């Protein structure tokens, strides 16, 4: 005995069009007959696709020995929907194939029957894999899933490796399936060897097939176990469709990887002056929907763990999503991506603003981002550096360099600021471009003697000098920090003036020492 669901897994019946009555796919038959009059046992009725046979379909379906009808021939005939409704009501499948010769069809069904009787039906299942691969090439994943759903008579759900519904699913999931998938995503998946495992919740029992290619997990297929279904045939049908689904998912993943790496390369080239022309920049940017005809500005964010919290993971994606939502509230568009351990934000703005306004807008945005990030993540210290605005987007590499320099040189500022613009970093910007040996020479010539004296006599002149400058020359505040009387400090400063040969009332002398102290921080 063969079931109709079994014969549809074998060529040429696998290409058959299912016209109706598929609920009765589990019906089995022992013989194939050309005419219903002489039926004596459960039969599959083989009918030529002609006008007269189609008109007689309801009559054939009413015969209790008819388990299903197979229409053959190439004629393009319209079958009234009422007839298909009749097939649905009798739950007797009506299939249509393009074969011409009824004897050859009979022979093929006889062969299937023989293979089943000697236990070699497995060969038929194996051959069906090539059908699914071919279908995948022709109609893609939605076409394959649709056909699989038709064969199984129920909605089959494709999930990705994180138990999220794949976009290839055409039919929506039921509330029971959604609840089950949610519970699956919250627990670790352990099964790696079996082809499927049984999972259940209040809505019923389900078969969860895992899509695995080598060590890589590509996703899952979820199938509900319905009462009366021929579970072993359904399993075979899914298992032999899985290679085609895996090949599609692997291909999709490879395309995504290539797209991602190409995008990364484009952004790298943009930030490191590797693009040849502005036109090329505009054209390439269009691929990802970025309009480089607009004015752009750039900032770089560095995230460090606070010293109190040396461990713990940082969810960069969540941070970038937060930044994106903050930027989208005030600007046209933004590109946010990680590079070299920093997060780079390229913001597209309207060209109506003056350079000063553009800088102010960016500073406001950067401060807002800094506040939000530090507020939501207690363990993270966030610093933002901003580069200058340039009229051409081809100059973004300069802005990127400046933003990184602003971040780096912020360490040498006596006043701590988490958001720094390149224009505001002061004299450190000049010092950063002077050779270290020159800086060293200047520092030695200015403060070298003081350091030697401190080392020899265990004095605190250097500490005093630094505190004095950190408090902008305020005697009382400096004395308070050093736990000494202001008059003691005045005495020490007099001594410092004589050692360094300077006058702290002269601006030029003050600046000379200030630069030397800055150099000290840089060289450290």
């Amino acid at each position: 005995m063969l079931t109709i669901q079994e014969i549809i897994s074998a060529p040429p019946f696998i290409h058959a069009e299912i016209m109706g009555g598929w609920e009765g796919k589990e019906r089995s038959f022992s013989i194939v007959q050309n005419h219903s009059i002489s039926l004596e046992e459960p039969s599959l009725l083989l009918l030529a696709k002609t006008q007269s046979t189609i008109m007689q379909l309801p009559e054939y379906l009413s015969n209790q020995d008819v388990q299903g009808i197979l229409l053959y021939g190439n004629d393009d005939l319209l079958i009234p929907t009422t007839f298909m409704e009749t097939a649905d009501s009798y739950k007797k499948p009506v299939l249509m194939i393009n074969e011409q010769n009824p004897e050859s069809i009979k022979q093929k069904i006889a062969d299937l029957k023989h293979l089943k009787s000697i236990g070699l039906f497995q060969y038929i299942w194996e051959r069906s894999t090539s059908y699914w691969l071919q279908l995948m090439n022709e109609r893609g994943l939605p076409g394959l899933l649709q056909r699989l759903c038709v064969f199984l008579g129920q909605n089959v759900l494709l999930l990705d490796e994180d138990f999220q519904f794949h976009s290839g699913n055409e039919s929506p999931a039921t509330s029971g399936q959604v609840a089950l998938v949610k519970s699956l995503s919250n627990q670790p998946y352990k099964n790696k060897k079996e082809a499927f495992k049984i999972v259940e919740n209040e809505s019923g029992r389900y078969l969860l097939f895992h899509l695995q290619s080598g060590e890589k997990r590509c996703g899952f297929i979820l199938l509900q176990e319905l009462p009366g279904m021929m579970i072993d045939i359904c399993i075979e049908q899914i298992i032999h469709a899985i290679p085609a689904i895996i090949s599609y998912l692997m291909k999709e993943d490879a395309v995504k990887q290539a797209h991602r790496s190409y995008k990364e390369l484009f952004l790298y080239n943009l930030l490191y002056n590797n693009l040849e022309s502005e036109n090329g920049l505009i054209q390439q940017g269009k691929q990802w929907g970025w309009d480089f005809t607009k004015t752009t500005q750039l900032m770089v964010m560095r995230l460090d763990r606070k010293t109190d919290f040396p461990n713990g993971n940082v969810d960069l994606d969540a941070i970038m999503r937060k930044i994106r939502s903050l930027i989208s509230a005030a600007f046209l568009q933004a590109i946010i991506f990680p590079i070299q351990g920093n997060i780079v934000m390229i913001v597209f703005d309207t060209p109506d603003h003056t350079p000063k306004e553009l800088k102010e807008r960016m500073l406001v945005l950067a401060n807002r981002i800094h506040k939000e990030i530090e507020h939501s993540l207690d363990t993270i210290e966030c610093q933002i550096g901003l580069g200058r605005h340039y009229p051409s987007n081809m100059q973004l590499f300069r802005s990127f360099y400046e933003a990184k320099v602003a971040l780096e040189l912020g360490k040498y500022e006596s006043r701590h600021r988490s958001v720094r613009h390149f224009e505001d970093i002061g004299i450190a910007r000049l010092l950063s471009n002077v050779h270290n040996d020159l800086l060293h020479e200047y520092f030695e010539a200015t403060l070298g003697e003081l350091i030697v004296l401190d080392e020899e006599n265990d004095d605190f002149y250097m500490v005093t000098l630094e505190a004095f400058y950190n408090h902008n020359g305020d005697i009382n505040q400096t004395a308070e920090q050093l736990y000494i009387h202001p008059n003691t400090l005045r005495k020490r400063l007099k001594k410092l003036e004589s050692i360094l040969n300077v006058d702290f009332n002269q601006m030029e002398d003050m600046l000379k020492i200030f630069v030397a102290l800055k150099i000290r921080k840089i060289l450290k």
Partner: protein
Amino acid sequence: MKQLGFLVHIEKCLGCRSCEFSCKNEHGHEDSFRRNIHSLEDEDNKMGHSFHHFSMACNHCENPACMPACPEGAIKKKPNGIVMIDKAKCSGCGKCVIFCPFDAIKMNPLTAKADKCDMCYDRQMQGKTTICVSACPVKALEIIDINDPKNADYDKSIYGFEMKKITNPSIRFHKKKEDIQHFWCR
């Protein structure tokens, strides 16, 4: 992304200048070297009796100061991290020479354009290593990917040599002493 850089094995370098001369033969011109040997007092022996040497050219910095300094935008950083000068765009203004903290850029007197180590880009495109690496008789020079975690333990600076860190130079130093080989028995 890759970031290629030089790894210098300090204990191996003899200061023989093979790297300097091979580089000069390959790319050079009279009176100028792209690569230079530096000799420094050893950390353990500050009396000047012991020296170590290392070879340095362009460090292909992660944040190259020369790149934004160029008014023509002639300096670019390739996706493998190599910093290159586009000779066609270079006007010979010499700004990059001033901005480079490692004195790696020189003016070529023949072309009157800036010139520096390009990590033998053409040789690398042919699958060969740089000329300096292949010329070193004691294998004291290597090309490594700085971003590769297995190279994270090498030192970023060397005792006695002032390194400008703001540009994040892609050079690493390996100072570990090899075990002394005894060629004789007592």
